[in-house]
């Protein structure tokens, strides 16, 4: 029997004492030799940083995913809040898929937004279907020291490609 969905609402401004959890950005255990850093900023339509966004990451990769970090095992789920400058960071392992799935929540955002941070820029059905300037917004750019930069622009120039799953 088909059930009508419960509507979404904004995460609001006051989730900070409830949703972030210890080690939420540490998907790879501390000191893992193959760990990569994925980081970036969230910006609004005026180009201002969004200091109260919550970002979730899912890559699975054979793990069930969990909130709890046991200090030993990799887990494919991460969650971090942006800091006062709109910046976030996670430490993870290179995903088996070319991308890490990203879900964005924020005060002012009535319904979360899905996107993907592609760390591998090779042929991909989704990337190949996008115009070049739009495609660019999904590419995590490698800097130094195994660090990849992935900024999220909610609106306007350079707006990130957001996904809808049907």
């Amino acid at each position, binding site marked *: 029997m088909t059930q009508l969905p419960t*509507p979404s609402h*904004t995460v609001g401004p006051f989730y900070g004492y409830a949703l972030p959890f210890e080690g939420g950005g540490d998907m790879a255990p501390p000191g893992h030799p193959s760990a990569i850093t994925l980081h970036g900023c969230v910006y609004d339509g005026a180009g201002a940083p969004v200091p109260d966004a919550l970002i979730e990451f899912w890559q699975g990769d054979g793990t069930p995913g969990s909130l709890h970090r046991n200090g030993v095992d990799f887990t494919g789920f991460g969650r971090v809040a942006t800091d006062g400058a709109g910046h976030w960071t996670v430490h993870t392992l290179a995903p088996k898929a070319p991308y890490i799935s990203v879900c964005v929540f924020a005060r002012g955002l009535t319904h979360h937004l899905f996107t993907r941070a592609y760390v591998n820029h090779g042929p991909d059905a989704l990337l190949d279907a996008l115009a070049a300037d739009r495609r660019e917004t999904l590419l995590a750019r490698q800097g130094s020291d195994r660090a990849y930069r992935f900024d999220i622009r909610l609106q306007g120039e350079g707006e990130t490609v957001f996904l809808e799953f049907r």
Partner: protein
Amino acid sequence: MTLRQSDIDAEVSAIREAYAKARAGGAPAAHHPPRDYAPYRSSVLRHPEQPLFAVTASNAPEAVELTGPVFGPADVTEFDSDLTRQHTGEPLGERITVSGRLLDSHGRPVRGQLIEVWQANASGRYPHRRDQHQAPLDPNFTGAGRMLTSETDGSYSFTTIRPGAYPWRNHENAWRPAHIHFSLFGTAFTQRLITQMYFPGDPLFAYDPILQSVTDDAARARLVAAYDHSLSRPEFSLGYRWDIVLDGPSATWIEEGR
């Protein structure tokens, strides 16, 4: 210029009328709020203007998002689902239980999956440094909980206190109706949901642009819990029932759809 409740009401009405007209013209029901909903002023610069890119089971059968995290016993403790037992004393306010089931869009229970809740205290105050409302904090109430849904029927139950309404600065004299925030996971990441549960009969419903962002009347009604006397416990708590239905495709849907 001061933004008044009457200004917000006029904007809400105009959007509602446009939606009714679209529905009359055959448009499908909108179960979720539009991300571009100006009466909620914070949405103005925080919604995309480009259309979302559609990912379907046929163009992306291997999509990572068709799977999702599966939480377990290491993620919760038995104390996490009773928000009245997280400190040494009893919190102030009206003790309640909120119970229901977590279902997918086919009406099947979502078993053993994580539900997180957070809420203001009985005075309408969050223990958050950005909450400047001049209402007292309660040393015996934090207002955050989590639990796993039952392995049999996807049911959940939290014991807490009824939260208070509180003011915010969307416009002059803006007040949020009492609500509990819920965060939910399905079997696929595509089913992820964060929402808010309201209490029946709240007089603030009509004035709140966040609730009114759900323009469809029937959809909005699905955010309101029902008082259920059979869930009230003698000499202890008042009972509310609220079932939650997740949207979005999942890997199990694809398998079973074949």
